[in-house]
């Protein structure tokens, strides 16, 4: 089992990454490593998603935090925001 250039192109598109071709060799090595699990019989074994059995906790629907928009927006340059909104490249011509 190994990756083709096309496989990697598709994965890179899904992950919104641009990668150079040299990564294919590394990914093949990792695939080879993880593929060892295919030899193991796992019939009737339940999948373990988590180390602890935790239940989703519920809480009262009350406001616990003040409005932090200004603080949050201090993370980006002035040129990337307007009227409290975030600016991105134009999507519609």
């Amino acid at each position, binding site marked *: 089992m190994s990756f083709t250039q096309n*496989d*990697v192109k598709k*994965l*890179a598109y*899904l*992950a*919104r*990454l*641009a*990668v150079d071709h040299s*990564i294919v060799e*590394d*990914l093949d*090595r*990792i*695939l080879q*490593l*993880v*593929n*060892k*699990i*295919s030899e*193991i019989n*796992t019939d009737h*074994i*339940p*999948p*373990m*998603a*988590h*180390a*602890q059995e*935790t239940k*989703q*906790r519920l*809480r009262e629907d009350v406001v616990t935090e003040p409005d*932090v928009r200004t*603080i*949050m927006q*201090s*993370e*980006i*340059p002035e040129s*990337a925001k307007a009227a409290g909104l*975030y600016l*991105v*490249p*134009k*999507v519609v011509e």
Partner: protein
Amino acid sequence: MHTKSILETAKDLQSKKISSVELTTHFLERIKKFDPKLNSLITMAAEQALTNASLADQTIAAGQAGPLTGIPILHKDIFCTNGIKTSCGSKMLDNFIAPYDATLVKKLKTAGAIMLGKTNMDEFAMGSSNENSYYGPVRNPWNLECVSGGSSGGSAAAIAARLALAATATDTGGSIRQPAALCGVTGIKPTYGLVSRFGMVAFASSLDQAGPMANSAEDCAVMLQAMAGFDPNDSTSVEKTPPNYVTHLNDSLAGLKIGLPHEFFSEQLNPEIAKVVDNAVKELEKLGAVVKEISLPNTHLSIPVYYIIAPAECSSNLARYDGIRFGYRCSNPKDLEDFYVRNRSEGFGKEVKRRILIGTYVLSAGYYDAFYVKAQKIRQLIANDFINAFKEVDVIIGPTTPELAFKIGSKNTNPIEMYLSDIYTTSLNLAGLPGLSMPGGMINNLPVGIQVIGNYFQEAKILNVAHQFQKVTNWHTQIPAEFV
């Protein structure tokens, strides 16, 4: 000042032998003098540290001090710190100043600890040598040509060089224990859910766990006491009151059952390391412990399973970095698609991209069952190995790493070689168990780590074992010659 334990230092502070401002100044000066050799810090917070030290002195004067009041510590740069940069070792977050403190940061602040700065790490905690940091590799204080280990390499190197009395770190597949072993310090990865993950940058959420690093098990116990406990802001935080870790340190080891898993002593292990582990076990036998050989038959599957589950969760967690609300923004994007792709491609390093792509692959249609679900099933088998072993023994002991600190650059051509540094550590993360690494010997002037593994929530027991070992040995008090 930098060779004393936290409790000794706390005593000196409370008896006014020294002030926290003097202590903090001493450590800040050590960082300025020594860190250029190590690169263990990304950010120094000198001004804030001195302000807080002076406040700590007031608390001490008012007679309200706890064991951590006025004690200088470092935080791994994965923890959000209000107003101080949190880079996570990545260009993606090089400009990120968190608007809030992680729960763990807040807890240590409340306990009176003084943050001196933020430590270097592999980008997004992905790596075992600290060479994946955007800020350059951390050097091992025992040999500056060698790696510090990773991903918490900055914390480990800084503690080994006595640049602070303790540091925080995180462990997803060995990132506390492996660098602790390679730098000769003590570090504990608690049971999953014991320490809050709120405000800790996420890598693989079902595996990530924070813990302390220091120069002894006793210091780790003091730190863990302040860090552990339920947090409503973390949905996986366990609603359990932690025991008193410090008082259990002096429990007797008479009759303690130690399991030695023969899979941890296979041909992959450097035979000299095996000898050091053997000697450590003999010391514990002298203290009354009883040794039993055990088997963890699925150990060999932990690396393959880890490199499916961790990348899967990483690809999902790191999807949030789009450069819109925070983080790296490329210049002059052509369109929205180009904006996303360039923000992520220019912001992330090579190893992070590899893991995102593998994670995307194992979660994609047609491969999900064969890889991700299958890996989760084997994860259960790995956890069962431990559950069965702990029916017969109290703790499990083995090496932390298969080899000593290696030369910087020596494992950069094949990612798999690096992954294998964690063959004895990842299984604990998959099972969610606590594990500790403590220095147990030296080979060619490089430290050897001994791993002590406990059952769920048995942190007090493994700290107890390490403390008793450290009472009769002095490996943990060794200081690398250049940093005395």
